């Protein structure tokens, strides 16, 4: 049966972009940060597949996000550590990974159980990642004549930064909205749209970043 444009949901676009990023990242596995990025994308794909599977069966799928958040934060932090040169900040980020994992475990166990959307975990993760992103952006050091917009690290950091900027406000108000019977349906729809837009922008920037890996390789060869 042919696929019509009406059938295409917003998240389908970002699934396609995510898959494209994953496939593109496989070409640059010799770089440590790209290996981590590939792993993150792979885990994202698996999580989304599980979520879609549970959605189809009308089951509660939030549990996957509780685990995914910890893995996502760990991997994003490791990628950003690789872009930062100050040892003290590297250590701080490194120590924040187990700290976040413990905090997330505590929140999931006692404050926001796994049947709820992990809003607190998401918000803490978002604030931490955005802070690390700012430090990483300021740490980009020029080593040739390329502008900041021609550097892959800029686009990849910006991809993380933008995703959390877009999703953070809504993550904060998602659970209170879900408690309200009248707003529940529109909250879910809005969350889907905002999450998809954030992901689309993020993966598009990631693709640009991966393209610049290719570009840098080509200018080195010429």
């Amino acid at each position: 049966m042919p696929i019509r444009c009406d059938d295409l949901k917003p998240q389908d676009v970002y699934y396609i972009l995510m898959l494209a990023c994953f496939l593109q990242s496989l070409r640059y596995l010799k770089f440590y940060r790209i290996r981590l990025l590939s792993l993150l994308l792979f885990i994202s794909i698996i999580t989304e597949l599980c979520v879609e599977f549970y959605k189809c069966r009308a089951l509660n799928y939030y549990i996957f996000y509780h685990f995914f958040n910890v893995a996502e934060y760990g991997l994003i932090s490791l990628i950003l550590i690789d872009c930062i040169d100050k040892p003290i900040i590297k250590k701080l980020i490194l120590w924040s990974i187990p700290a976040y994992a413990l905090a997330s475990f505590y929140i999931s166990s006692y404050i926001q159980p796994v049947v709820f959307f992990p809003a607190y975990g998401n918000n803490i993760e978002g604030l931490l990642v955005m802070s690390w992103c700012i430090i990483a952006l300021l740490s980009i050091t020029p080593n040739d004549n390329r502008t900041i917009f021609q550097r892959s690290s800029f686009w990849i950091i910006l991809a993380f930064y933008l995703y959390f900027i877009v999703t953070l406000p809504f993550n904060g108000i998602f659970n209170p909205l879900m408690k309200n019977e009248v707003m529940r349906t529109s909250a879910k729809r809005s969350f889907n749209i905002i999450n998809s837009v954030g992901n689309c922008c993020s993966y598009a920037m990631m693709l640009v970043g991966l393209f610049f890996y290719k570009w840098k390789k080509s200018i080195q060869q010429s």
Partner: protein
Amino acid sequence: MEEVYSTVIIISFILIVLSIGIVFAIVNYKIKQESYRKEKKIMLEEFDRQLMKSQIEVQEMTFGELGKDLHDNVGQLLSSTKMLLGITQRTIIPVPETLNLAEQTLGNAISELRSLTKSLDKEWLEQFDLITNLNTEITRINAAGMLTIQFHHPGKLPLDHQKQIILFRIVQEALQNAIKHAECRTIAIDIKSNEQVISLNINDDGKGFDDNFNGMYIMEMLTTLFRAKLTQGLADFWVAANAIKARTKIVI
């Protein structure tokens, strides 16, 4: 709903602060890139300077070795020959005029050789200032009678030995070029000095650049440019009234 509003306000504030971060990152990168470019330029200039300096040092060493060889070997041979001629003069009576002329010519040759070896010897150069050295060199060339060199200078120059030697080599190079290629009759060397700049002008009345303007000449001109750059100065060449002019300016 109050919870929702307060969350929106707090997060909006965080977003504004963090968005400014991106702008800062871009500005920060621009500043870093500018200083990186400056550093790179300085490094390249330093590299060029070191390279030129080593080239000049090698050339000075070669000149020194050449001068020593000329003085020790050729000079000795010529002195022995002069001594033998003197002995011969004493045994032959009357002394033939050709023998006297030969002895006189040999004396001139020894004197020429001595001047030449002196001008090649860096240690000797360091004992005198540029003006004294140039005067010796000009006297030597003028004595040959092929051309006339006019020399105008302000007296003592406020320059260190290293720069004086480099300037001396620039003049030597220019004189050699004029003698070898220009077919000129007169060369004018004019040195002017004020508190900040020393300017050296060398003009000849030769044929200037022509169709046979060869690569060797270009190499010699480039050497002069390198030498001038080594003294943090400038050199340029141009043709006026069918003759080559060379000018070097050095900031003190």
